[in-house]
């Protein structure tokens, strides 16, 4: 009895101080798993195809997804009619009707100080003869949700699947977000599909006043993001398990009129799975606070960059603590200077200015290399020096 009490006390202390937790609560009449750390609260509904149905940025108490709705209606002659709100994030399969109400089996629930992890499974995901193992991890002190899944062909014929992170969310429920899409120029079609063609490689901004209802764009990077003038957050989705280019693409669809809905979706390259074959994917949902825009993501660091008259203004924000380090900045192959970056933590942006010396007339891409060895090259802005 004594030991049992001691265990409870220690366990209680652990719960209070542990950075990560996994609990079960009810939302709209169904149990949802709640993964939580100091930055993010992610709500996952196994009964709704394992979707992320709630996402809260805790420092600002900001809800990033519309309230989850799950309704069951009984109609004579029909199986239970389940309606699930379309907000949130889930794995869909391009070209196949999206089923929002599949009941995923919870295989594993893990909650330790360093991380909370949930694993779910469905034998016939989206009504197809393929199993789907989906996991989510929230790590300690990370403003980032990791989402992974494995698809396995359980049928007796090959299956070609194109997984797709279908994500409906908003940074501000009052106005539509802009979607930040790194894209390649000069390409009008991929894989038999028309895509929005732009003249050159760039960060394309799908603004709220863009008149095309839905666009597909060729991926120049493995991430896309969203911003909103009325929110200090930038939210990004990144595919980390494989390159998106050349056959993957970004997709975004907007609601009509005043609707705030504007999706941001990463559509993976098609993958042919032979019977018995499986394939794993991994995505990240990243939240950067304090930046006004996003030009690149390098590891855990979000980068914004603006060229002023005689200098380059940098903004950095991170999804995990990053120790202080240096950043060498280049224009083309020419080194422009070295930035000393402080130790950075999620929850704020860090501004650094890099003066531009005398440079010859040129138009050059800007790139950088961190002391850790990680490097990046910006699609934009480009450094244009004119006499």
């Amino acid at each position: 009895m004594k030991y049992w009490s001691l265990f409870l006390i220690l366990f209680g202390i652990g719960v209070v101080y542990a950075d990560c937790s996994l609990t079960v609560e009810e939302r709209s009449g169904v149990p949802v798993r709640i993964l939580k750390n100091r930055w993010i609260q992610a709500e996952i509904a196994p009964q709704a195809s394992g979707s992320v149905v709630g996402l809260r940025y805790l420092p600002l108490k900001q809800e990033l997804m519309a309230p989850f709705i799950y309704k069951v209606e009984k109609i004579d002659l029909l199986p239970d009619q389940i309606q699930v709100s379309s907000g949130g994030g889930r794995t869909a399969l391009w070209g196949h009707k999206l089923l929002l109400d599949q009941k995923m089996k919870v295989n594993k629930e893990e909650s330790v100080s360093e991380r909370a992890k949930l694993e779910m499974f469905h034998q016939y995901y989206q009504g197809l003869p393929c199993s789907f193992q989906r996991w989510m991890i929230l790590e300690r002190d990370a403003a980032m949700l990791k989402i992974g899944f494995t698809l396995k062909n359980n049928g007796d014929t090959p299956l070609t699947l194109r997984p797709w992170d279908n994500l409906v969310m908003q940074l501000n429920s009052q106005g539509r977000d802009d979607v930040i899409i790194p894209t390649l120029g000069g390409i009008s079609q991929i894989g038999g599909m028309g895509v929005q063609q732009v003249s050159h490689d760039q960060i394309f901004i799908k603004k709220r006043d863009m008149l095309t209802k839905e666009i597909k764009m060729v991926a120049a990077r493995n991430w896309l993001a969203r911003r909103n003038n009325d929110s200090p957050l930038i939210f990004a989705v990144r595919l980390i398990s494989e390159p998106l280019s050349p056959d993957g693409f970004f997709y975004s669809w907007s609601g009509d009129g005043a609707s705030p809905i504007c999706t941001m979706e990463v559509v993976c390259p098609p993958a042919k799975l032979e019977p018995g074959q499986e394939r794993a994917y991994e995505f990240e949902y990243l939240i950067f606070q304090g930046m006004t825009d996003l030009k690149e993501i390098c590891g855990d660091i979000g980068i914004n960059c603006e060229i002023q008259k005689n200098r380059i203004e940098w903004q950095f924000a991170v999804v995990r603590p990053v120790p202080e380090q240096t950043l060498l900045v280049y224009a083309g192959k020419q080194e422009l200077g070295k930035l000393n970056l402080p130790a950075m933590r999620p929850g704020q942006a860090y501004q650094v200015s890099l003066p531009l010396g005398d440079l010859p007339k040129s138009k050059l891409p800007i790139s950088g290399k961190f002391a850790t060895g990680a490097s990046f090259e910006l699609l934009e802005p480009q450094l244009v020096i004119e006499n």
Partner: protein
Amino acid sequence: MLKSFSMIVLGLLTVTCSAALQTSQLQLDKNMTVRNLAKKGDWRQASLQFYMNIGQKGISAEMGEPQVSEVDGSMQLLWTTPEYRWQVTLSPRGKMIEAVSELTSLATQELWLEPGMRLTVAKDDTFSRFWSGFGHSAEIGKEPLHRTGIKGEMEKHVGASTMPFPVSGIFGSKDSLFIGGVPFDPVSYTAGSWDPLTKLLTYSLRVVVSPQQTVTFRQTLGRASATYGAQEAIVQQYYEAYPECWAVIMGQDNPYIWGEHGQYINWWLKPEPELSRRLGVTLEWTYCPYKRSGDMLCREELWDYKPYSPFRPNKTEMGKRFDMAKTSREDYLRHRQEFFRRDGRRYGLMFYNTTSGTWCEINLAKKLYPDAITHDKDVSYILNTWSTHHDQEIRVFPWQTSFGKVFESDMVTLTKELDLPGFALDCAYGGAYYRGPAVEKPLPGRAWDDKGKFIDQNVAINHQVDFIHNIIKEPKNRRLSAFINGYLKGDYVMVEAPYMNTGKYKRWMPLLRWYIGPRPGCAHGHGYMLKEAIPDWHSRSPEELRDMIGKLSDYVIMNQFKYGLGTTYPTQYGFPQQLYIQQEQHELMRAGWQAEIPIVLEDGMRVPYLARYGRGPNAYFFLGNSGTEVVKGKVRFDNQAVSDDGLSILYALKMRNNSETTNLLDGNFTQVETVLPSRVPVIYEALAGIRKPAEDFSCEIDVNKQLNEQRYHLRFKNQQTFSSPLFVRDIRNFQLTGITLNGQDVKAGVDVQIKPNSVLEFRYSSQIFNNSAQEILAFPFTDAKNRTAFSVQINSENGRELAQRFNEYFDFCRSKELIAADSSQVMIEKVDKPVPAAGVVTLLIGEDSEKISVTPNKGLVITAHNAESANLMITELLKVMDLRYEYVFPFRMVSGLNWEMIRHFQMMNKAFPYQKYFEAQ
């Protein structure tokens, strides 16, 4: 903003109280007092006022009293101001009062006006709900309720919207009071409101009037019972007052609209005549029979262009594949012409007219039709890979614009070139405002708001349907039909969602159904949507799944009768029950779905599915028990609501052969004792109407139906003699051949004395068949070895193609192993003066009579006026032959049901059994 520009002017009439206008529901006095003629209603009287909001320019002048005059049972009000002259003619229209306005500008500048009607009800009258015109109603509280504009909920990926029924109404538990407009009139903006504080109900519309222009518009005023649903009763009054709004071109004789929609079975695939006929398909949606959105003609100079997405290499039309990147214009057009000229009328191929002319390939629109672009940013404006699957399209306005001119001209050209039976109008929705240069023209339907003048897309599409109807005026049987996907004008309506899509039906109905009204239509889509309907189908045993999917089929059947709409082949293969019910479903659809279902069920009866079709002695009631247990009880049909003429209607259980039904005529009701088996549709059909005396009594009804004759035997159990005219039902393809009362001939519509225990009999004979089905089926179409054993003789060459239908019939039978594999083709021979003979079908075209008869020497003779009617008669004959050569379509892979699913529930090449529940055993 608008408020500051506008003012309200009221035209109040002086009190010279006397009844000016009256309907069965309400009375309008000359002093504009509206009186409720129902003794116990939720309201007693209201004061009617006409008012005018003057927009934009801020013209303000008090209106004086109108000049009032009475003309031919109408009351005319006239106001004249320096800016305009407004004449309102009030007259009864059905159960409502109609106000027809002529608004003439006397000003030198354009007027932006909002004429309206408003009703002030007594302070102590209470209403519980306000109906703004959308599918729902709002509970009345302390706050005003209002609707402004006609944009409703966004629908479909093309971003058009639902549109309110043109009504503003308030109601309690007993009845309603409403004002409104007329559906499908060219109106782009309406508003309605109810203020519980001031007890004011309003309905207005906005118009733009050019100098010297006269704009006409219609408004309504009414009262309706709320006993069987307040909104339903109001809509019902519209069906009765404005039947022309829902009238279909060519009426009951339209050869295309009274059946099932092919859902591409005759467009993507090469049509198979017998397959199509046995599935009841009568028309088809020919999706995008052109290359470039907006260019239906496939003009030479527009043929080669760069699409947004790659052209499909396998665009399929009638089984022929086209690589649209490589196919030459000449080749494509040659095939298109061949397809439509050969099969257009046979299969009802409705030419898909580039999404009702509301979307056009973006570069084409920008280059040639920039004035037509509909710059409404509140709805979808540019769509990628939409209708043609390869174009980027922009919304355009197809009326009175450069595009509209070409669009209409193209439809005329195509009609001639392809001998079209009609057009298919996709996305026939309103909710997109055009504000381009054409709004400067003095067109009907112009409205205004704080962004300026506009015309809603609905005005253009409704105009388009009128235009299509008038492309061919003569001969009348060649007029063009409009197959629409939406809620606007048209002759056959597609609901683009299968019945299994309960979410969409919940969202769309009942508003969409009210708009469809008595018109025919169908549900289109992915059949059973099995993946969505039973997401865990993989985990179910075959037995479980068969049980579940059998229920889905019955769900579809129940909904077909509930909504009066057909279905398509994806729900029919493997489910012979679905094809079995077509005969009744089509008959009811022809009678016309009605909004109000005046039926009272005995306490405790659970009947989730109810519908009413037709009116008076031509009414039908459908009752569907979707539960697991038999439901029994008394069902009462409210005669006052079914019939305007004060008739008591007599009903029989609808069966194909025999039925016995006892009616109790009880007050204003006809009561039957019903038994509703689980999952079986039950139909009562009206047979006759009489003027019932004060005495309540019962009537025993025996019905006997044969292919060539129908007999109705009624025994009245009255105690006292009464006098009544007799009204009997109409039966399609039958004529009334006699009515007897106690053995004496009597005439329909004439008063007769009905003594106690009188027996009334009436008979109909078929206008097609002289013989019973047994006699026809005794004809030796095939011999003992199941080989074809007859020939066809024709009297003219234009009968040869028709005679080939017998070969098509038996080719199908042979391919389905219904007859012997070595059965030969039916021989067809032209004979100058054919003489009917045993084992010979004689087809005589150009005869005075139209009949199908078995001759004494066992020949079969078809006589017809012309080839067209002969064709219809052969179709009827083939239906009879189906009784002998029945084919049950097995499961096959269709939209919403794939091979894997069929294999999983072990129904490959099999079909479910079916019940002949409309036949007494």
